[in-house]
């Protein structure tokens, strides 16, 4: 069995745009709003309809069901009718024989707009009462009465920018009419959301829509909710025209139209005792949601959950305000609001340390959360690894020595200054909407002993397929070469939760393990018969061979499967897993929403060229809590990749919009993502030993999102280097800290 990785390096791997198309396939191009906020007075399609190769132009009038694609809140129409609220909002779909003809025709559509006021800033939206939903408040203890007992109280403002996913495979879908309905090949993290939304728009039952996902060329959250619309559009066209229809976005359209990580603007107030204990923390998050809800409310909620990062704080009040602006609806991105929350508390501590005249790591370490503490939203802390990972990192990398090296360097250098920061993390694992924490798996053992596994997990580079192969291989004790992971398909696995929230391997791995265990139990009964053993409990399979009471027998996997088949044994199992013991009360905003937390500590050193404002990342040393890693190489790759994206978000990835809501950073030359030079010169990632986790298959822990947050530390390392250059530097917390911002902050008297 060829693994995905072999197909990737040989060019065999197919992505949606690589699929062979059926004869008669049409191409679709979206006609979208060029105004961030306007009333539509008139649209003239006449000339476009006559354009070469055009098969049809679909608008809201062509929708058989509901003109609605909103998931959590039904506020987003598939096609705008009377008003547009962001640049890129769909108005019509042009379908033609070629993509070029479709695009050419769309250029001939003439819209008459009447401009309406454009809002792009979340605080301005808040002042104007433009909210996605009423504010949500999480609170623990009593923050109001805590301030009087604090020795130090610091307040301030923190901003963090958005982030473009820039999955290298752009949004794509291919819809094919079938005898009974439609089959959709979609590049989505959420096959069932695609299926349900198409069902709703076409007004046909879900069982007539088959969604199939082979793999994604990157997702990062950008294809959790925002792959849906492309699938729906292609499905609508295929359904109306009874022809296969393909829709693949160009990079520039993808950048322009799709939502990004939410920018946040936040106010904080933090109070500490003079010995450095955090006594109170109050924070208000203004989330820039864009024009429609998308996943904003769920993302904002995770911001609140992670408002205190890994610190035990007795009194916390965190308010989340989702603000409606005239930007494309912002959406999930690795960390799902968590990083935005954690950046604020880290900034607050950084500022407090500055005021107190001590190193911030002393405050960080002093307040690490531990067993028997309570996360401020009510979850009791169990199996905490915050202190353990900090201490392990200190033992392995020597915190004091690293700090001293930086001090020594800075004493000897004028233009170049080094900066050091510690970034500890705690990230909750589980969808915070508890119902999503379920998965199923379908395992077939074929008569030749090969195994096919279907789950709800979507492979997007995070290695979930390899991990599920690992789970099945270990459970059956057979070679990985016997196991194939099938596409993610809604007819084999129904009601899939999105592959998101870092839970893919946990939920689907657990379901696959249960399915394998079910089959294994039946196989043991057959083995007992074959070996004339009385008790199947005393049998085991090791390395494809049956063992009886610890002794190897001559019954192997192949013969066992043959015997099982001939004696009419069910060699398939469909199994189900739901994360136990999680809940959250949304009336009181209290509960225990996470199965567990992932912890870790990173030590970061950077060098800033204080004449040019540019910087380089010298070293990132991490001790990370992987649990008992299922696949060390994949987990390391995930940690390294997440770190790179986190560094990108904090430093170089800057979205620039004009006041009228137009994205100016709309190419890879104007929107910078980390390249090979962005990798720190030294990246050391150590596995925290002895971390157990009963919620992960074989005691593993989720990996996708948590290491992203190590990147936050880079911001403070750069700021610390700048402070060494200019002790009077006015500290600012406004990510990304681009070289331009560094330079302007170091030379504030220079006017540009």
């Amino acid at each position, binding site marked *: 069995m060829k693994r995905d990785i072999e197909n990737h390096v040989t060019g065999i791997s197919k992505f949606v745009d690589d699929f062979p198309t059926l004869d008669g396939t049409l191409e679709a191009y979206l006609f979208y709003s060029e105004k961030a906020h306007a009333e539509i007075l008139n649209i003239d399609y006449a000339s476009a309809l006559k354009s070469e190769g055009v098969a049809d132009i679909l608008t809201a009038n062509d929708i058989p069901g509901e003109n609605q694609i909103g998931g959590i809140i039904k506020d987003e129409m598939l096609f705008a009718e009377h008003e547009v609220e962001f640049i890129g909002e769909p108005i019509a779909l042009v379908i033609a024989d*070629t993509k070029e003809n479709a695009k050419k025709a769309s250029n001939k559509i003439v819209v008459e707009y009447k401009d309406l006021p454009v809002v792009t800033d979340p605080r301005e939206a808040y002042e104007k009462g433009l909210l996605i939903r009423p504010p949500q408040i999480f609170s623990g203890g009593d923050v109001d009465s805590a301030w009087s007992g604090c020795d130090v109280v610091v307040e301030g403002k923190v901003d963090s920018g958005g982030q473009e996913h820039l999955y*290298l495979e752009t949004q794509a879908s291919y819809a094919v009419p079938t005898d009974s309905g439609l089959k959709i090949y979609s590049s989505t993290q959420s096959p069932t959301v695609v299926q349900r939304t198409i069902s709703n728009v076409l007004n046909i039952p879900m069982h007539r829509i088959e969604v199939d996902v082979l793999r994604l060329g990157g997702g990062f959250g950008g294809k959790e909710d925002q792959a849906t619309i492309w699938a729906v559009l292609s499905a609508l066209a295929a359904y109306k025209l009874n022809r296969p229809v393909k829709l693949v976005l160009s990079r520039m359209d993808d950048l322009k139209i799709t939502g990004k990580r939410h920018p946040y603007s936040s106010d904080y107030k933090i109070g500490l005792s003079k010995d450095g204990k955090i006594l109170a923390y109050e924070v208000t998050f203004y989330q820039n949601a864009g024009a429609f809800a998308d996943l904003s409310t769920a993302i904002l909620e995770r911001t609140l959950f992670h408002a205190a990062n890994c610190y035990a704080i007795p009194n916390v009040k965190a308010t989340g305000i989702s603000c409606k602006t005239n930007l494309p609806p912002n959406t999930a991105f690795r960390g799902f609001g968590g990083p935005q929350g954690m950046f604020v508390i880290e900034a607050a501590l950084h500022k407090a340390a500055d005021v107190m005249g001590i190193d911030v790591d002393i405050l960080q370490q002093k307040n690490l959360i531990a067993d028997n503490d309570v996360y401020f939203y009510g979850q009791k802390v169990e199996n905490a690894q915050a202190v353990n990972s900090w201490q392990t990192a200190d033992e392995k990398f020597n915190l004091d020595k690293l700090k001293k090296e930086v001090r020594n360097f800075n004493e000897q250098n004028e233009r170049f200054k080094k900066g050091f920061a510690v970034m500890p993390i705690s990230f909750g694992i589980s969808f915070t909407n508890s119902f999503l924490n379920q998965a199923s798996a379908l395992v077939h053992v074929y008569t030749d002993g090969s195994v096919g596994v279907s789950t709800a997990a979507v492979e*997007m580079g995070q290695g979930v397929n390899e991990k599920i192969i690992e789970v099945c291989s270990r459970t059956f004790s057979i070679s990985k070469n016997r196991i194939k992971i099938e596409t993610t398909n809604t007819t084999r696995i129904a009601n899939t939760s999105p592959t998101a929230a870092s839970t893919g391997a946990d939920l689907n791995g657990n379901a696959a393990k249960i399915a394998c265990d079910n089959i294994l139990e039946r196989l043991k009964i057959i083995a007992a018969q074959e070996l004339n053993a009385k008790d199947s409990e005393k049998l085991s399979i090791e390395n494809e061979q049956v063992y009886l009471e610890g002794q190897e027998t001559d019954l192997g996997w192949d013969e066992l499967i043959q015997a099982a088949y001939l004696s009419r044994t069910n060699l398939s199992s469909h199994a189900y897993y739901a994360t136990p013991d999680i809940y959250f009360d949304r009336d009181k905003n209290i509960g225990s929403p996470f199965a567990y937390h992932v912890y870790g500590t990173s030590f970061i050193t950077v060098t800033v060229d204080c004449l040019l404002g540019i910087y380089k990342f010298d070293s990132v040393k991490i001790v990370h809590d992987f649990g008992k890693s299922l696949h060390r190489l994949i987990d390391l790759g*995930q940690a390294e990749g997440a770190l790179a994206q986190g560094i990108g978000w904090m430093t170089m990835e800057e979205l620039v919009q004009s006041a009228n809501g137009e994205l100016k950073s709309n190419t890879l030359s104007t929107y910078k993502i*980390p390249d090979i030079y962005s990798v720190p010169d030294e990246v050391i990632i150590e596995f925290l030993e002895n971390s157990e986790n009963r919620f992960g298959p074989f005691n593993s822990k989720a990996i996708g999102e948590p290491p992203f947050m190590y990147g936050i530390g880079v911001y403070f390392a750069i700021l610390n280097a700048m402070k060494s250059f200019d002790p009077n530097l006015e500290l600012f917390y406004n990510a990304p800290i681009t070289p331009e911002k560094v330079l302007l902050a170091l030379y504030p008297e220079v006017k540009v």
Partner: protein
Amino acid sequence: MGRNSKSKGLSRRQFITRAGTGAVGSYVLFPALGKAETKNLSDNDPQQKYLLGDNPLSLSVNGKNIKTKVRGNTTLVELLRDHLNLTGTKVACNNGECGSCSVLLDGKVVYSCHMLALDAQGKSVTTVEGLMDGNKLSVVQQAFIEKDGLQCGFCTPGQVMAATALLSKNPHPTKDEVKEGMSGNFCRCGAYPKIIDSVLTAAEKLNS
């Protein structure tokens, strides 16, 4: 399902906008002249010829000689993907910025989205599909597998081609030279440390 083999009348990117359908005396826009101008053309006019798909092109792709006709504005990646069904080469930006479409042109790495198919006239193109020796993976491919030098796999063909070109030019690269040689290829998954590792490992294997 058979991939639609009929060659597409128009390619994805349009350097030149065609207004007519190729009939004698059709009108052509020349946006490159700054102001849109129209000009009456005959079939013998070279400008008209370039717009039609009758420009003879012969080149070698993965060791096979190809003789075909293309429009003047067909890019090399369009020729590979849409005409020759070699979909291993990916398009991610279509703007010469990301490296996903990297192929070898006479052994040198180029962005195939950023050059015309006609500019490969008489040359030898190698794509990711052409790296294997029969069923045997190339050393570079093997090293990427061994070191897990990839995640989602979309940029991988380009990375593998860039690494192949780098090592053929410089069989003993330092880490810095690897970075330089691979710096034209983005990996949004951020697999860079393992990509560097893969290239260094491939170099080691090639030298042993």
